[in-house]
């Protein structure tokens, strides 16, 4: 009897569906409550006003207006996007080449190289940024080395506390993340596809352009997403190696929430503008990539 009773629930289609949702619930609820709701409330707050230390619920686009109208903020936003694009422009081709080499030149040892590359990710985020300060500083390793070899007489001061420093550091941080989707995409391309193209008479780069790249485009897009979005959104790197020259939007946002001049609505609006702008730019660029590679 019990087995029949148990049946009506457990063997029915509805029962199976209900049970299927169960494992999704804990993480799902967590996401909804601690990601969805806070992001939504941040959006709501971006529409409020701040008076002194008080938050006044409102519905105004004043904050957004202020940011868009201010040349200072626009400048910072522009620099943020610029740095992000520069980092992505370096990271994606290097990651592509690395993935290609790992997959097609080294094959089996390629996996090992991938592990090594990924391991660098786990050696301390803050620490690596700080170390670049040591390397790029005026009395840092790079300058000392170049000076002792005799290539330069004076330390290169654009290497630290500058946009250049931020880009150099970001590239080191984001390269491993960009390699992953590219390597994974290339894994799915059988070697004999490329060989067939060569056999038919195509030169090396022609094969790359017309066979490999189209096949791994989704991986390229993901790599670009990681590199660009994470570079533009990074806050610690410009703080440590950017100096005053390379203040990025992240610094300004952070200041609204933890400095003396706290203006949460403004900070929130900035945050959404940054996210909005970077996402839109990402979509625009990937659409451009789609058009170009159609040929």
């Amino acid at each position, binding site marked *: 009897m019990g*087995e*029949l009773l148990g*049946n009506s629930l457990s*063997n*029915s*289609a509805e029962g199976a569906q209900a049970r299927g949702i169960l494992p999704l619930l804990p993480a799902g609820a967590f996401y909804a409550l601690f990601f969805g709701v806070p992001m939504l409330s941040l959006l709501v707050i971006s529409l409020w006003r701040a008076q002194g230390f008080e938050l006044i619920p409102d519905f105004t686009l004043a904050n957004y207006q202020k940011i868009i109208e201010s040349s200072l903020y626009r400048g910072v936003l522009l620099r943020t996007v610029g740095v992000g694009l520069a980092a992505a422009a370096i990271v994606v081709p290097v990651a592509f080449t690395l993935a290609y080499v790992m997959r097609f030149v080294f094959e089996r040892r390629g996996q090992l190289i991938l592990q090594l590359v990924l391991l660098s990710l786990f050696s301390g985020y803050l620490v690596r940024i700080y170390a670049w300060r040591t390397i790029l500083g005026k009395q840092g390793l790079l300058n000392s080395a170049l000076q002792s070899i005799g290539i330069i007489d004076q330390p290169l001061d654009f290497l630290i506390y500058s946009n250049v420093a931020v880009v150099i550091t970001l590239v080191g941080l984001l390269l491993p993340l960009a390699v992953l989707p590219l390597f994974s995409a290339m894994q799915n391309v059988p070697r004999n596809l490329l060989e067939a193209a060569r056999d038919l008479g195509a030169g090396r780069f022609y094969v790359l352009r017309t066979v490999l790249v189209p096949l791994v485009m989704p991986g390229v897009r993901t790599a670009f997403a990681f590199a660009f979005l994470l570079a533009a959104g990074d806050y610690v790197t410009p703080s440590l190696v950017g100096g005053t020259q390379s203040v990025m939007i992240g610094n300004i946002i952070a200041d609204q929430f933890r400095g003396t001049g706290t203006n949460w609505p403004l900070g929130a609006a900035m945050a959404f503008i940054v996210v909005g702008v970077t996402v839109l730019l990402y979509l625009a660029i990937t659409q451009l990539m789609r058009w170009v590679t159609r040929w």
Partner: protein
Amino acid sequence: MATHAVEVVELRKRFGSMTALDQIDFQIADGEFVSLLGASGCGKSTLLRIISGFERPSEGRVLIYGEDLTDRLPERRPTNLVFQRGALFPHMTVRENIGYGLKLRGWERARINARVDEMLALVRLDALGDRNPEQLSGGQAQRVALARALATEPRVLLLDEPLSALDLKLRQQMQLELRAIQKRLGATFVFVTHDQTEALVMSDRIAIMNAGRIEQYGTPRDIYRHPSSIFVSDFVGATNLFRGSISQVSDGEVTLQTEVGTLSLNRSEPGLQPGQRVALSVRPEAIRLAPGASEAGGNRITGTIAEIVYQGSSLRLRAVVQGASAWVECRDEEAGGIGLGDAVTLSWADGSATLLREG
């Protein structure tokens, strides 16, 4: 009447708007080896999964030894399934795999060990008890899967294309082994396959399935000799289908006008009308070849040899008869030096031809 081992009553299965099984009614007797034969998509695996409990029918019932088990959970059915790729538990040894069902039934260790030994001997894998599944070859893995399914002495064993992943020689060997084990145990086996030779070799009866229905259910010889439809005659073994229509029906004789000429059958078959579209099915090996042309008619036709295929132990020859092809299969010696382009006469015994209705 003895209770059937398996009885399927008015079974239907729909997946959304797609009908996978349409009015399945059949019975399997105790101790029988029955094959469900058909191409992929015909519904044979679905039927098996319904009998084993992993799918529920949209309509109809499944009875096992008289007990209605349609609503029973799979773990509570007296059936066991041998999966297509073995589905051995990778983290258990061969012995532990075979003994799993027994452990669930609460047997003591000594008893489990004894039964596992018995099973290993049955499938002739005595020395491999302590291996892990990944160390086994394909054939060994399937034998372990079989042993595991038999260990709990199920009343009905269901096998879902268990040999399809094996290479030809191994498959042929396993076919005979499986049949021998089934006979020795006196168990009821329901065997799903798409390979008609396999079905013919192993089964007591074959159910040929097409688009969710059973087209014919009978002994291998019945199905081969007297296919009930064009689909069956075409699916099992090769055959010639001389298509045409009935020109005359009289007592004891049927005359047809076909693509290879006027033919007749010395039989009376019920329900035939002049003008009805039919096909005459004659197996290539049932056709006799004689050199030279002669008068056509009845069960004789004349044509020219267009193709000869050498198959080692036999020859296959294609003759063109009035524009249509007729295949003949015979031993090399029987062809008596007939070559390409020769005129030949093809004839067959009346009882070797089957009249099939079109559509």
